[in-house]
């Protein structure tokens, strides 16, 4: 049960980061940071790692 609460939190944070990545203008490194974080969150959301 608690696992799904945590996965929901991961999914929520992932959505926020993705939205932010598309909003950020003139800052490629911010976008790159966001992409790297997305990889780790996706791996956990999909229960791969």
């Amino acid at each position, binding site marked *: 049960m*608690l*696992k799904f609460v*945590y996965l929901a939190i991961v999914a929520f944070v992932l959505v926020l980061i*993705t939205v932010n*990545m*598309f*909003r*950020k*203008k*003139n*800052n*490629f490194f911010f*976008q*790159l940071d*966001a*992409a790297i974080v*997305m*990889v780790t969150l*996706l*791996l956990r959301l*999909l*229960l*791969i*790692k």
Partner: protein
Amino acid sequence: MKKIPKHIITASILCVFVVAAVIYLAIVFRSAKQEEPIYAGPGVTEVRKLSYWFPGLANTSGDTDVYILDSGVPGASMLVLGGTHPNEPSGFISAVMLVEYCRPKAGTLYVIPRANNSAFTCTDPQEAAPMKFYIDTDGGTRAFRFGSRATNPIDQWPDSEVYVHASSGQKLSGSETRNLNRAYPGREDGNLTEKIAYGITTLIRNEDIEITVDLHEASPEYTTVNAIVAHEDALELAALTLWEVEDSFQISVEKSPTNLHGLTHRELGDFTDTWALLMETANPSQGRLHGRIDSDLVVSGKDKFYTRAATYGAVTVPYTESGISLSERCARHITCLVQFAQQYAFVGSEGDLDLGDMPTYRQILENGIGHYLADAQ
């Protein structure tokens, strides 16, 4: 036509990279679930799953193979646990060697090479540990997984802030929630790690196992290393073994502390009739002082930083530039196991236990542990 803003284009390209990275990493991490083969040797009479004793483990990553080596001659029984901590390879490889080489002449040997099967499917975070290590056998090189100290978080997550050991109420750091050697005697309705512990405890009870030995390694700077830790019931057996092996190598016997809970040498002795023992060898790939960690460090045990640390007295075991090889660490485990079985005749009451023709400490050192493993197939 309206021009697409530059930041939308870069974000879209990055998304493609994210998907590609996730696919690639999924393939890499999934490969850790692929079990390395263990070849049942001439002594193996039966292979069962741990879920045979505790069906609650069926179809979970905690279920694991139990190899039964029944000599056909009635006598005592011994259970050997390898891979309680899959980042301590001498325990795992010693257990694999028993399965592939040992042929008991009296009594029955039970071997669980991958006691925490789930922990074999990942490595510890921040350690930069290799996913595999390689051992040369007489017929080619075999790969074995280097795993984690704890159950894969994919199988059991999240950890609580504080881990409360169920039967004693002892409080430990939350990360110990996934440590099999803090979960005994285990719980039928507990988390996966507690269920694995419960399965092993049930096996010991149902099969009336006389001796249980849990094989471990620790970092060379740790205090309990090159040691046998024995539950008070098994203390005499450990002392007799010490006498027999101390001509070959230095080892100490420690009594299991009564106030440290969840460990095999405490709980299996308290909650079952088995004589519970645990062994530690010194593993330079496990400590905090080693350099680059790769298969070579795991197998050769050679590390220049540990050599230097030893000259400062920062290491609790003898350590030179020739290192402490996996063969040497397995030789320690195997020599003591053979002696536990032999010495049981003097202090036990359930008949003989004879592991048959096993190599001596010197022979394992000379020929390498790979010589006693099955060829690569």
